[in-house]
Every structure is written in structure tokens, then in C-alpha cells.
């Protein structure tokens, strides 16, 4: 069990180091075990350095930088242990438009192995989908679903 944990951790750490500069358009990041001698209880440290910035405490990162770093870690996990489908519910709410675009481009790279369903408010994400559903409440309090024409995404 400890062996599996260490093996998994090593693979995820490699993936995390790879994905980060792709998500951020630069920069470096790594994962570290807080206590490599105690694999049963060790924690996982995240060390992240956005492009052009000096390496500092994780806590000092901005709201959007933290969200993107967490998304990067989740994608690193998906790279090592893919799931057949994944529903993302508005995970990119605090990202600016440039970061949303990189995030959405990234989804496209994974979509051969993972079927993504993405709930979003963001135009950048909408631009990358293969089909689009709109949920609305024409009659108050009752949800209805409508398949939307992908050209419609230009409008909203």
C-alpha cells in the first residue's frame, strides 16, 4: 500500500510539473512530501511559481492563481489515472479570460480519453465544446433543457 502511494505520488508529481507551465503559459511547480520518511502519514506540499514571479509561499498567490494551480493538480491526477467521464461544475469561475482559454484548450487535449461535461458561464470554455445545452426556467421553478446551435455561442 505504501509502495502504491509512493508510486502514484511520483507519477502525479511528474505530471504536475509538466502540466503547470502549459496551464500558466510558463512558470514552474512541483509536489513534495512533507515527510518522505513517513509515507503513511506524510502530507503533500504544493510549490508553485507563476511565470516571471519569484518563488514564494503558496498562500500569497492570487485567487485565480490558486484556482488554476488546483485545476492543474486535478488534471495531473486525471493524466495518471484517467476517468472515463468527468463533470466540471464552474471550476473556472475565478480565472481571467487568458487563463480560461488555456484551461479550455487543455480540456481539448484530454477529451480523447475522458468525456467531459462542463458547466460554465465563461465564453472561452464554451468555444471549445462539441455540443452545447442550455438550461433555463421558462416556467418559473421548472428546469428545461435545450440543445443549442453551436453558432449560438458567438452571440452570448
Amino acid at each position, binding site marked *: 500500500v505504501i509502495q502504491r502511494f509512493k508510486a502514484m505520488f511520483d507519477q*502525479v508529481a511528474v505530471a504536475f510539473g509538466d502540466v503547470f507551465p502549459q496551464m500558466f503559459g510558463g512558470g514552474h511547480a512541483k509536489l513534495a512530501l512533507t515527510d518522505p520518511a513517513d509515507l503513511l502519514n506524510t502530507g503533500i506540499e504544493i510549490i508553485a511559481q507563476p511565470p516571471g514571479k519569484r518563488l514564494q509561499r503558496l498562500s500569497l498567490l492570487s485567487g485565480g492563481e490558486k484556482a488554476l494551480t488546483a485545476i492543474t493538480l486535478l488534471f495531473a491526477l486525471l493524466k495518471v489515472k484517467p*476517468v*472515463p467521464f468527468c463533470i466540471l*461544475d464552474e471550476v473556472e469561475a475565478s480565472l481571467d479570460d487568458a487563463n480560461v482559454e488555456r484551461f479550455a484548450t487543455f480540456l*481539448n487535449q484530454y477529451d480523447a480519453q475522458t468525456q467531459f461535461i462542463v*458547466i460554465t458561464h465563461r465564453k472561452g470554455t464554451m468555444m471549445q465544446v462539441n455540443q452545447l445545452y442550455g438550461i433555463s426556467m421558462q416556467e418559473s421553478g421548472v428546469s428545461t433543457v435545450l440543445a443549442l446551435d453551436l453558432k449560438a455561442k458567438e452571440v452570448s
Partner: protein
Amino acid sequence: MVLKSLQINGFKSFADKTTIDFGTGITGVIGPNGSGKSNLTEAVRWVMGEQSVKSLRGERMQDIIFAGSDTRPPLSRAEVTLTFDNKKRDLNWDHDEVTVQRRLFRDGESEFLINGRKLRLKDVANLFLDAGLGRHSLTIISQGNVEAIFGNKPEARRFLIEEPA
């Protein structure tokens, strides 16, 4: 395995029977605040065996049955059906197509069906657990999960590695 379709009928704000067909690649879902997008996500978690009412934002499981609106009376049952393409037999069920259905009635009666066969909650939960789609897998990711990675102490992040390992 591929997600083919989701049918929601009486679950939370979905008073009318609603079907969503998932194509290949990326499916986008948009809509105004409160329109039902997260309810849709919870419908998927619920039919896959979610038992934590709190994680479904309710206090009693009956909270997930359509409670009525300005123009409609409450319903007496909620029903969600999830259909998979199972040609690769990722799900331990010897059938090219697998349909999982969950029903809850206001009196508390519950039904679980796989391809029309009445089974128990644990059969449905195990079906997904054995395919690596249990409650700790990354099949559903929301803003809360994203924040938890940062909010937590380094020790609390272990589960991300432990569960799939």
C-alpha cells in the same frame, strides 16, 4: 465506457421528464443562476449511489423530490436514469448497454434498477466502485473541490493520491 444519456424526472427543479444525450468529446452546459445546472450534476451523483443528503444540499433525502413552484404542485417521486455504452465491459455487467435507474418516493420508498432488474443501493454503488468511479474518484469536480486543495493542510491532501492509488 461512454456516457450515452441522462434522464431526469422529478429530481429537484426538473419537474418534467428531461433527457440529455451526451455526444463524444466535450459537452457544455450553460444557463442562468438557479436554472438547474448543479441540480443536473447532483442527479448524476444521486443515481450513482450518493447517500449524503448534506452533499446534495438537503436535510432529508425527500428534499430532492420536486417541491412545486408558483405554477405546479409538488411531485410524489424523483427518478433519474443514466445510460452507458459498455462495449468495453468497463462496468462489470455483461451487456453492451447499461442503464442505471434510481427512484425515491415521498413516503421514503426507494428503488434501484440495473437494466430493468430491481437491485439494492450497494449493487449500484459497487458497480461504479469496481469500475474506479466510486465517490472518491474525480468523476465530479466542482469549485468546492478546487478550493479544498488549497484550503487544506498538506496532510489533508493525501486522499487525492491515496484513493486512486
